[in-house]
């Protein structure tokens, strides 16, 4: 087990290095954007003197390198500066929104991951049957349609025409958990439809890949029933690719929700990011990007560790 701990620590270290490189990219990419922030904040009518004064106040007259390290130093301690528009602390502005996004992602994941793995196992078992084809067509259709289209279709049929769910996922602090689930069901369902196909097809492929192995033939020749051959003999050896594709989709649930949040007017980090970009609120843009990057890195790390833990050769060394 010591080896695995060492491996995890090593990956974690590499993750930190990657994040550092990304932070450089994010900071200087924003820096490259045309236009002057102080000018943008004050509007075209501002005199050069007021603009210069604001620049000095915001620290924009200092060299970029210096500002980068000030920003990085703050980010490490959780201080991303203040919003240029509202003057609110970035960390406060983001934290509520991020929690909302995480909640929606978890909601979708809790539904999507089990469904797609179970469906994947079933279509592997019933491969090349009508069920397999129907499942493939349905999931492929849902993955090929743009999210906003899916979202609007769901709104049309499940909100406008039938009134089962609210069309707008607005949140208030005094509602019960059940109500919360009810209100956010449509955005969650949209996300589920988007990510299921990928995970299901990967599960199917990973299992079918193994079916030609001698140990699968051995299991059949021992009289093991077909479902058990798949679940007990193939699935445990197929985890590594499945875990990786699950992690990729979980990351997408957090970083790719912008459109869904806009469609359902859901107060998540994606909406915040869109607002901030249009208003040139750079501290918020930078903080959002950094959080997205960290999410990606952490989930990929988790996938790596997961793949290692499901490999008996690594788990039980000679």
């Amino acid at each position, binding site marked *: 087990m010591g080896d695995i701990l060492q491996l995890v620590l090593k990956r974690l270290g590499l993750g930190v290095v990657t994040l550092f490189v990304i932070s450089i990219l994010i900071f200087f990419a924003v820096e490259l954007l045309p236009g002057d922030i102080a000018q943008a904040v004050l509007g075209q009518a501002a005199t050069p003197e007021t603009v210069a004064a604001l620049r000095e106040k915001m620290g924009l007259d200092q060299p970029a390198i210096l500002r980068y390290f000030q920003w990085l130093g703050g980010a490490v301690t959780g201080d991303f500066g203040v919003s240029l528009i509202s003057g609110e602390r970035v960390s406060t502005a983001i934290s509520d929104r991020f929690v909302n996004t995480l909640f929606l992602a978890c909601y979708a994941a809790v539904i999507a991951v089990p469904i797609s793995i179970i469906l994947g196992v079933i279509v592997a078992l019933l491969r090349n049957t009508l069920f397999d084809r129907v499942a493939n067509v349905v999931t492929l259709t849902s993955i090929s349609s743009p999210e906003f289209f899916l979202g609007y279709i769901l709104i049309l049929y499940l909100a406008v025409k039938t009134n089962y769910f609210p069309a707008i996922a607005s949140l208030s602090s005094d509602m019960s958990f059940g109500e919360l689930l009810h209100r956010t069901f449509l955005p969650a369902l949209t996300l589920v439809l988007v990510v299921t196909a990928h995970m299901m097809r990967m599960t199917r492929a990973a299992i079918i890949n193994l079916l*030609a*192995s*001698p*140990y699968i*033939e*051995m*299991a*059949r*020749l*021992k*009289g*093991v*029933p077909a479902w058990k051959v798949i679940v*007990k*003999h193939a699935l*445990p*050896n197929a985890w590594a690719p499945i875990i990786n594709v699950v992690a990729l989709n979980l990351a997408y649930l957090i970083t790719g929700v912008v459109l869904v949040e806009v469609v359902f007017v859901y107060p998540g980090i994606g909406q915040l990011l869109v607002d901030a970009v249009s208003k040139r609120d750079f501290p918020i843009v930078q903080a959002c990007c950094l959080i997205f990057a960290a999410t990606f890195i952490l989930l990929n790390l988790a996938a790596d560790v997961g793949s290692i833990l499901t490999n*008996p*050769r690594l788990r*039980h060394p*000679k």
Partner: protein
Amino acid sequence: MVPRKEVLLEVKDLRIEGYSDEQWVEIVHGVDLTLHKGEVLGLIGESGAGKSTIGLASMGFARDGCRISGGSIEFDGMELTTTPESDLRALRGSRIAYVAQSAAASFNPAHRIIDQHTEAPIQYRIQKRVEAQEDAMELYHRLRLPNPNEIGFRYPHQVSGGQLQRAMTAMAMACRPDLIIFDEPTTALDVTTQIEVLAAIRDIVDQFNTAAIYITHDLAVVAQMADTIKVLLKGEEVEEAPTEQMLDSPSEDYTKSLWAVRSFKRPQKDRPAAADAVPIVSVKNVDAAYGKIQVLDDVSFDIYAGMTVAVVGESGSGKSTTARCITGLLPPTKGEILFNGESLPPRYQDRSKDQLRQAQMIYQMADTALNPKIRISEIIGRPAQFYGNLHGAELKNRVDELLDLIELDPAKFYNRFPPELSGGQKQRIGIARALAAEPSFIICDEVTSALDQLVAEGILKLLDKLQEDLNLAYMFITHDLATVRSIADEVVVMQKGKVVEQGPKDKMFTPPHHPYTDLLLSSVPEMDPNWLTTLLEERGTDSIGEAAKV
């Protein structure tokens, strides 16, 4: 008169089809087979003879892409060809069990050995988990596995190949089946390990009076195991007879030719008498390591022009590593390689084109050593172009000449791709590719071990002829002592990275031997059906079961 035993399996006019090139082609053409309770039937033949397909069919099983298209398979009164799949499944593992060729690949890497063992008995409600585990340990004990009470709780990758093969035999025994299909169970093992597995299998089959179909391409092995031998060729029966009779007086020409393969032997050549003769390759005090693990320890031997030096030993003894050191793929950590008396740079990157040209290699798996997407003309032409700087018509002539040398018709093979060739033809292309560089020294790494005996003999004869014509020196890596006997002039015996004995072949095959050489030599199965029994008696254990009871 001994009363005739009860018939267990009766196969009549079995026909099996395989799906290839979008149509069904018959691959087994009406084979009959009768097996009585407690009897062992040996099925032998070259690859493609349909041995495994027939073995699996006697479980009512056809691999994906195959189907049983005709005939009847009657097992203990049940007609398997018309039995529904669910009933067939209930038969597998409980009444008919299977032992596969590679236990390492056939044990599921994700589960402990004993959990795979107890799967069938628990499923068929023959035993509860704890009972089944105790029974497994008992079987491990009988099969003389080390630490029988613990070994089952390991994962397959934590156990050696020979032990896994015995554990798989134990697994087949778990429900005490009436019939076991052994599909080349020792082919992937070293001769020394093979003996243990053979003895274990024979013993356990005797003890439980289990009937067995023993599939192999090795005649000497089947002679030890079977009561009756059936010879197959291209999906058809050639002949069947009791073992002794089959060995003494085979009636069909094909069988006789199989029997004769092992008789190819070439007179031994001696080192040049001149005192100043310089060996073409000289390995001097070479040590080598993979990372921190030392794999070669002070290896030294010489190879003279026109001679064949066989390097023998079990897997892991360092034979192939030595070859990697000579070719410069793995720089030695100590010692040096001399070529015609001159020291070679340790890394192949530092060697001159001419130094590289002089030493060529032929690989074990011609399938993987030839790029399937490149035409034969280019596979052979490339080294001729690279080393000989030949182009256009000159190059084509050279390729034709090389194809002639390896006895393949240039007109037919020039434009073909490797997958269109048979195993023996592919290996010939491998030889031609080595010859294209006009080397003086060729390393042959287990070049015949993936081939059927008749084909292998053809390759050996070809290599011998080429040696005569071109005065080539061979380093022949092999674990098959029959090959050594037929082609070698000198023998180097390796064990655990060291050379334990070396000398001229005739001397090596006459006692006294080094104890390890003796072990290797005596472990090679012989055609005498009593060989295994006699050998085990000499080694002091007349049967595995007896030893286990002590």
